[in-house]
């Protein structure tokens, strides 16, 4: 790695007053130049993104306003698909389940992965090994993950219930084959699988926390908790924003895991929106309607993201 040559920035720093940006009133030509340079950075990625992702996504939005069985022509139906959502009980169930999953999966995953990152960011013997272990669930084939967890959860033969049976009498949870316990089971596995992934992102963020700030706080007599709260967390804010948005979106979009673990069952106990989209689109060929569900899912994600975005911006300012 090359070490960047950064000259005495502390002495030079004052010539450009640090904050606040709004005070800076650059001339128009500078503004234009800045915009142009900004765009040159973005353009290579944006070209690919606009053509390969944005165009199909816009098509999807259009399709949500049509009746389309994928093969024939798409007939314009206006907002009919959205009107139909109001009366569609399965959609309501899928929406409820999705929110249920997200409501638990988001906070638990953030806490667990942050704790893991903090623990494994220390100079521990074998930290490299443990980091790899924590990352393993993310790289293990999802089919194997589903198979093993299903076996662990097996009500009759599974080790989890055998273990629980030693402490509690009476009815044990039926886990993935019980209406009430299937969702908690899926959330546990979801968290287990994702924690290494988000740990990695937090770990990257933790590297930006200046060690001298920690030292200073320690000298000031701050305890571990205070240091975490007053030093680590504020420095981690951009990463925290990123992780929160990603966990939120990924949780609301959860698909593969549910598909291989419970396939939405038993009954509709773990049916989620992404799966409902697939069901309507690829099993029943109602692509227009499936697109409308996708748009709703998108709107929920965007709503949450914008709230997080604004909140983050306000704290930045």
């Amino acid at each position, binding site marked *: 790695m090359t070490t960047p040559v950064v000259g005495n920035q502390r002495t030079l720093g004052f010539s450009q007053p640090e904050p606040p940006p709004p005070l800076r009133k650059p001339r128009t030509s500078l503004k234009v130049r800045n915009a142009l340079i900004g765009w040159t950075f973005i353009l290579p990625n944006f070209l690919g993104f606009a053509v390969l992702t944005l165009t199909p996504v816009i098509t999807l939005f259009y399709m949500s306003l049509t009746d389309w069985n994928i093969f024939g022509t798409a007939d314009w139906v206006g907002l009919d698909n959205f009107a139909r959502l109001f009366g569609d*009980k*399965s959609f309501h169930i899928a929406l409820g389940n999705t929110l249920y999953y997200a409501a638990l999966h988001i906070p638990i995953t953030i806490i667990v992965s942050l704790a893991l990152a903090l623990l494994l960011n220390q100079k521990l013997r074998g930290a490299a090994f443990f980091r790899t272990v924590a990352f393993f669930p993310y790289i293990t084939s999802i089919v194997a993950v589903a198979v093993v967890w299903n076996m662990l959860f097996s009500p009759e033969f599974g080790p989890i219930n055998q273990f629980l049976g030693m402490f509690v009498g009476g009815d044990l949870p039926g886990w993935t084959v019980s209406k009430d316990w299937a969702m908690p089971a899926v959330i546990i596995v979801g968290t287990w699988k994702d924690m290494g992934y988000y740990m990695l992102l937090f770990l990257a963020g933790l590297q930006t926390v200046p060690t001298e700030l920690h030292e200073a706080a320690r000298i000031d007599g701050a305890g571990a908790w205070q240091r975490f709260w007053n030093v680590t967390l504020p420095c981690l804010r951009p990463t925290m924003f990123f992780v929160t948005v990603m966990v939120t979106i990924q949780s609301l979009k959860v698909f593969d895991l549910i598909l291989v673990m419970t396939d939405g069952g*038993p009954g509709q106990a773990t049916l989620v929106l992404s799966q409902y989209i697939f069901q309507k689109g690829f099993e029943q060929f109602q692509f227009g309607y499936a697109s409308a569900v996708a748009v709703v899912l998108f709107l929920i994600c965007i709503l949450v993201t914008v709230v997080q975005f604004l909140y983050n911006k306000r704290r930045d300012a």
Partner: protein
Amino acid sequence: MNRKIMSAFGVAAAASLALTGCGGESEPEAPEGPVTISLAGWDFASTPEFETLADAYEEANPDVTVELKEYPAGDDYDTALTADLSAGAAPDVFIVKNLKNYVTFTDGGTLLDISDVAAELDPETGGLEPMAVDGVTYAVPYRQDSWLLYYNKELFEKAGVDLPDGSWTWDDYAAAAEELTEGIDEKSVTGTYLHSWQSTVQGFALAQTEGAALDGGDFSFLAPYYERELALQDGGAQPSYATVTTNELTYQAQFGTQKAAMMPMGSWYIGTLVAEQESGAAETFEWGIAPIPQLDESTTGTENTPVTFGDPTTMGINAGIDESKVETAKDFLRFAAGPEGAAALAGIGITPALIDDTVADAIFSLEGVPQDELSRFSYTTHETLPENPVGQNTAAIQTILGEMHSAVMSESTPVDEAITEAEERVANEVG
């Protein structure tokens, strides 16, 4: 390694078939000059049927080349084919694998009208007639499996239970399953095995119950079938649905390694079991096939025709096919769904839609297939009704019934409540 042996088994069988003179020999109005048509199939390594049909046809029509395009197996076939159809990239001839998608395919204009081909086929061809939508046929069946009862003779003897004799109703079957479980008296060996698919309960109920219809809005006909299966799993005569799904049990292992004395399963399993016994993947034991148990005595006994279910697998022509190839493609369909195709398929242990004596002879001449009378009767005689009757709403209804199946079998929801719920959902969401 299984599949190596399985295909070796197929080749040997085809060779023996050719010797007995069943090879394809047809004189259609062959188009002039060399023509190439493409055919969509899936997983060629373990599904030799497409290659067999293509080879047999090419042999009979040296001018024609049938080019195979490989798709993934299972439901992924539909996903991938759907994508190709939507982009105009699908092959000339493709398999309509799930009957429940047939109407969507025809509605979307993806299939060519082949009523003329259908008219020339033997009316006895299983599943042919319901393929006509408003008098027009868009796909013809070339293979049709039917559900049968497999049983392990040695476990029956060990338990001292009489072998099935073709007279069984479902209650007889349930009683035998309990008796077997007790008689064998071994941990993890059960009287019977029911796989987790919804068809293992609903397919029979729909086929065997008088007046039952998928789109009738009334699912009460499912109740007795579910009650019986629940009693069996609660009594330990078959692994519970919870165990089957959470431990991902495979029916091949359950029956093939003698963990279950009986098993309702499709006729495709004959070929699999023979091959697995030969390769050592399954244990060696004597087995037989019986008619699937019946709802009541009106259809039991070898003097009657037992009622079972099974969806035909059908073949259609891509509406976007090059005009110059239409005649060749139609001729290929005529061949595949006709007696020549049937003979070729039987030669590799696959049950064609058209079952005649030649087919039965071919199947039962394969090494390892049980030779008793009842097995042959079961294989050749049955009224096979579709699991997914052709209809506008079949796919949507099956989704709802599938969810009901997991709710009932996992004992999350009582049978009656689940049925009412399913009926309400069909009224609310479908149509």
